């Protein structure tokens, strides 16, 4: 019997998260399918491993560049290996947050105003005046983060003018382009989306209440530091609206199989689109597995279904 290959790791700052996600997916798939599941890193040996094992399907569980930016998916396409998840082109649209936000805004979804600038622009025009202008345009507080990448790495909230420069430096440590986004205060929810032969469905929203008030790296990956509500404490109408947006994002961005959309619901009850992940985290503290559980589903069974779909589409 042929094998499946779970790809995890890579050189991104989210390597550790990816390795943990990958191990979890591999184990669940192994149990659910009874098929041999190989785990591999993305390195110089990958092509050789692919040719040696000829896996029936590849499951990329990579976070950050090469995994989510579409490059690796294009490689798999060119080598004719079926894989779970978005195509390279679609993954690229989701990976670049300002691009994804623009596509969703054009589809009529509220999303916080954003500006995205490379370091060179600040150097050439002078950071002082530029930051003042941006501050006046967006209004404090401002969310600063790298345009790509996840796990809140390099992200920070600017609440006063003097913290703005250091927040920019923090974002530029992870990315060549930093985005500055209007900060929306409210309830954070994540809506996982699952695409099967029955269509694209939203799983129950997961509400995120970090103990520290900020859902940063520490709050994401230290069990116990964040309280999760699955399903989220939303009215039926609001839950339906969040689900609609997540499904819309999945479709507008052209994603496949699975995705996770992060929203923030302001005090007036308006959901604001923040981003969509084409390769959602699958660690012990990640949101997608919690949504599956809330829906009475099992990670292994679902991965098996998605693998079969990927094989069927070739």
């Amino acid at each position, binding site marked *: 019997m042929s094998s499946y290959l779970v790809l995890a790791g890579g050189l991104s700052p989210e390597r550790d998260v990816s390795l943990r996600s990958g191990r979890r997916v591999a184990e669940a798939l192994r149990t659910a399918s009874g098929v041999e599941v190989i785990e591999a890193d993305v390195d110089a040996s990958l092509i050789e491993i692919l040719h040696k094992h000829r896996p029936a399907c590849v499951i990329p569980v990579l976070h950050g560049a090469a995994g989510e930016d579409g490059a690796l998916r294009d490689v798999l396409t060119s080598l004719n290996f079926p894989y779970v998840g978005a195509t390279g082109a679609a993954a690229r649209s989701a990976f670049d947050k300002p691009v994804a936000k623009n596509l969703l805004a054009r589809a009529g979804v509220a999303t916080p105003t954003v500006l995205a600038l490379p370091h060179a622009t600040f150097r050439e025009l002078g950071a002082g005046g530029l930051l003042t202008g941006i501050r006046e345009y967006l209004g404090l507080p401002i969310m600063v983060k790298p345009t790509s990448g996840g796990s809140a790495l390099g992200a920070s909230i600017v609440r006063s003018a003097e913290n703005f420069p250091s927040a920019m430096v923090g974002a530029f440590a992870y990315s060549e382009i930093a985005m500055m986004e209007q900060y929306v205060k409210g309830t954070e929810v994540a809506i996982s989306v699952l695409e099967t032969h029955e269509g694209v469905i939203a799983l129950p929203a997961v509400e995120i209440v970090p103990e520290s008030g900020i859902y940063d790296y520490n709050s994401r990956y230290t*069990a116990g530091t964040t309280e999760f509500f699955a399903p989220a404490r939303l009215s039926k109408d609001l839950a339906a609206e969040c689900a609609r947006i997540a499904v819309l994002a999945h479709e507008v961005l052209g994603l496949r199989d699975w995705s996770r959309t992060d929203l923030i619901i302001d005090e007036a009850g308006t959901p604001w689109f923040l981003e969509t992940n084409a390769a959602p985290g699958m660690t012990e503290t990640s949101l997608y597995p919690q949504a599956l559980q809330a829906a009475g589903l099992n990670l292994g069974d679902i991965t098996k279904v998605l693998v079969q779909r990927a094989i069927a589409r070739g």
Partner: protein
Amino acid sequence: MSGSRLDPWVNSYAQRTAGMQASEIRALFAVASRPEVVSLAGGMPFVQALDMEMMAATVSKLLMERGAIALQYGSGQGDVMLREQILDVMAEVKVTAHPDDIIVTTGSQMALDLVTRVFCDPGDVVLVEAPSYVGALGVFRAYECDVVHVAMDDEGLNPEALSEAIAKLGAEGRKAKMIYTIPSFHNPAGITQSQERRTRILQIAKSAGILLLEDDPYGLLGFEGEPPAAIRAQDDEGVIYLGSFSKTIASGLRVGWAVAPHGVREKLVLAAESAVLCPSNYSQLTISEYLATQPWREQIKIFRDLYRERRDALLDSLDQLMPVGTTWTKPAGGFYSWVTLPDGLDATAMLPRAVQHLVAYVPGTGFYVDGQGRQNMRLSYCYPEPERIREGVRRLAGVIEGELKIAATFGTSSALRNSPGRNVPAPDLA
């Protein structure tokens, strides 16, 4: 309605676990384990320099001749023969003792734990160098000690600063329980105390009635001349000496020791028995067999020569490549150099950029309990080959230059990412 914290025991943990959290910095070290990255971060000894056939023969002989002892429980204080052999090893740093004064431990890290367990109640003050060994800080924190850093200078722990710290505590009606120091080839500072300095520090400790905890894992790894005489060589009542085979033989065997005054030693043995019953007999007898049958002094010379060559590669390339305003210590032994970045740069904030440029280091903040060290980094030269070290420094210089440009643009480098987690690599990271 309450949600899920994904950990049913979240309200049951001891307060001392508060700092045991996921860390963004630690996540970056996961990338450093990839071969593309030149890691100047971890402190793994280069055990590949051991003759593995010889090690295999040593272990084989041990198991064939004394297997039933090696695989059995042993004494809580450690194997008698090994304790006698440790006397020969310590003679190199002029320490004399009786085998009964020695307790063998699971690496000297366990000795650190036992000493702290025996001496320190929550809130007790421990004086440490600024910066200090991260593993010791972790132990002191675990026992809820109040860690106070004392400044170092080019000769190590500064006596005036030490006296001032003791006096300041005295004015508050407090007295430190211990002074923790690494006199030779300091981790992370790469500095060695002169003999005069050692004597002065001992005098200060004795006159204040404070126990001196001397940690000496690198003492035999000096690059010039004789190994420096340990502080314990001057005094056998006021000093607890910690030694280790991790750097001179094999870190994976986890064998270290403490030499302590008899009253202390008895308590350490009882504490050890309650912690682990006894250190691994297998590891102890492997070390003992090795010391008895192999030219261990020659092997240490091989290690010294190898680390000297790597130290030279590091210092030469730092000299050639580092941007103006960067300074570093010039270690005469051991594994580490301590780098100070140009004004305005922050080594913690810069680490993601470094990792993306495929070079890793440990940011200085990991070696302090109080947030100092942002402008510093520890570079380790023990593991990578000299060519890789040069390539790593070349990449690091580029990263620092890039960071200088960003700092110039924004007038700051501090990203204020002060993660509460443990911001140092795991022990198995090169």
